[in-house]
């Protein structure tokens, strides 16, 4: 008689056509921990079913004949596309999305049901197996699906909001042992919504005419660390004065709202810098046992929540003479490199570490640490010079 084993591994499949738009998968089991699955090597099964398979190591074993509940959250980008692609300034933006309403999995599924939650009733939805309840479209329940069951439904619905995306974010963190960390972020912002057809003119689109250019990006909200000071918002032209910042002890952050020089219509882009300083005592730490060992703790996410960055580069510039530099990130990085930066009073340059992360979402809002050894006495060289 074959004894059934307890398992702690689970496999998730994603159709290849959607996998390229996948930013993040998180799996939560009954112990309520968020686990990030690992993509497994390409093999014949994946090629045969045109799927990408991820492996999850659960936090505990599931005994045979036992049930386990998993919550799998998949975050995609660029899955919704504007249809029509170009609209006039008076029209509302509509988007369409294709999806697989069956549960796409390497395992057979006894019963499955998919609900699409929209803000309002859609313009179009594939009617097969569908039940529409206002903005919620339910597909299923499907019974006894085999592994890798595929089908395609289409939804076309109204979404009048702008689609802000950061094409590139570069953050430079400069550490000074005189007590300050200077941070400057450079953003390449784009609104990837429906584009404008015809000419742009201020007669139709201005702040006095309501309900025009509803999908234009007018402002963004950011949260800076509570102890930030010397905050500035500028671009290549100069300072941008249309911004407000408020140090809020209730949310333990500096709440900043920025308005770009012009409202970004669909397809438009804007670049800007946001810089701020942090007193070193809040982010730089010394090991009690070994005072030459320093730990810099910084946030690895964006100050803008709810917006994805396609590429996020973090440059950490340590004081000249820092050695034995290590780093620790709570998630894997795409690329790490080292270089030298030159600034005031430098001879050989300041060690700079460059970390690159792709497809950064709110999940990446965590803390990373850079650890280095530095002889504190060498900073006296600067005033003496």
């Amino acid at each position, binding site marked *: 008689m074959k004894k059934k084993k307890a398992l702690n591994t689970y496999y998730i499949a994603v159709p290849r056509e959607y996998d390229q738009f996948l930013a993040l998968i998180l799996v939560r089991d009954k112990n309520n921990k968020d686990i990030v699955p690992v993509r497994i090597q390409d093999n014949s099964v994946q090629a045969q079913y045109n799927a990408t398979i991820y492996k999850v190591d659960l936090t505990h074993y599931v005994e045979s004949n036992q049930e386990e509940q998993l919550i799998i959250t998949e975050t995609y980008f660029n899955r919704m596309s504007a249809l029509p692609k170009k609209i006039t300034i008076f029209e509302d933006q509509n988007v369409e999305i294709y999806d697989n309403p069956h549960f796409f999995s390497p395992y057979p599924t006894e019963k499955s049901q998919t609900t699409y939650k929209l803000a309002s009733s859609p313009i179009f939805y594939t009617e097969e197996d569908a039940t529409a309840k206002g903005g919620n479209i339910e597909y299923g329940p499907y019974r006894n699906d085999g592994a890798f069951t595929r089908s395609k439904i289409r939804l076309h619905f109204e979404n009048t909001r702008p689609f802000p995306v950061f094409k590139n974010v570069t953050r430079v963190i400069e550490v000074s042992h005189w007590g300050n960390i200077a941070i400057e972020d450079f953003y390449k912002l784009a609104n990837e919504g429906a584009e404008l057809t015809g000419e742009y003119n201020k007669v139709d689109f201005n702040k006095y005419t309501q309900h025009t250019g509803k999908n234009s990006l007018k402002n963004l909200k950011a949260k800076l660390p509570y102890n930030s000071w010397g905050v500035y918002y500028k671009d290549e032209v100069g300072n941008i004065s249309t911004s407000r910042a408020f140090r809020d002890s209730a949310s333990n952050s500096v709440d900043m709202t920025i308005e770009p020089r012009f409202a970004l219509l669909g397809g438009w882009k804007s670049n800007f810098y946001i810089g701020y300083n942090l007193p070193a005592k809040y982010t730089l*730490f*010394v090991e009690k046992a070994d005072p030459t060992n320093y730990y810099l703790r910084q946030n690895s996410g964006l100050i803008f929540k709810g917006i994805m960055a396609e590429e996020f580069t973090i440059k950490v510039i340590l004081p000249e003479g820092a050695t034995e530099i290590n780093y620790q990130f709570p*998630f894997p990085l795409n*690329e790490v*490199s080292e270089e030298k930066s030159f600034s005031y009073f430098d001879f050989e340059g300041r060690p700079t570490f460059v970390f690159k992360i792709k497809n950064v979402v709110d999940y990446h809002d965590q803390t990373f640490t850079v650890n280095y050894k530095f002889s504190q006495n060498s900073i006296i060289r600067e005033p003496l010079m």
Partner: protein
Amino acid sequence: YLFFFQAEDGIRDAQESRGLGDVYKRQVPYQAPVASEEFESWALILLFIGFCLMMWFFIYQITYRKVERYLIKELTIGLLSALFLGSGTFFFLLSVGLYM
């Protein structure tokens, strides 16, 4: 140098953060050799002393004729005033927010 790491094992769970808590206890916030509130005071005092020395140097140059002056004295006063003026300027820049 360019180090290229492929996206690797991404499994992180509670054990990781439990370990970090212990590590955090062994670390204390960094204290700069001079507190930021004192930058202006240091700047003022150092610059004041530096200017005094510089004035002493100029007056020394004017008062005595070339043959009566001592090179050692000139060099010493010059060097001291440079030290004080230089570090005073450094702390002045620190006090307006230009951290080097």
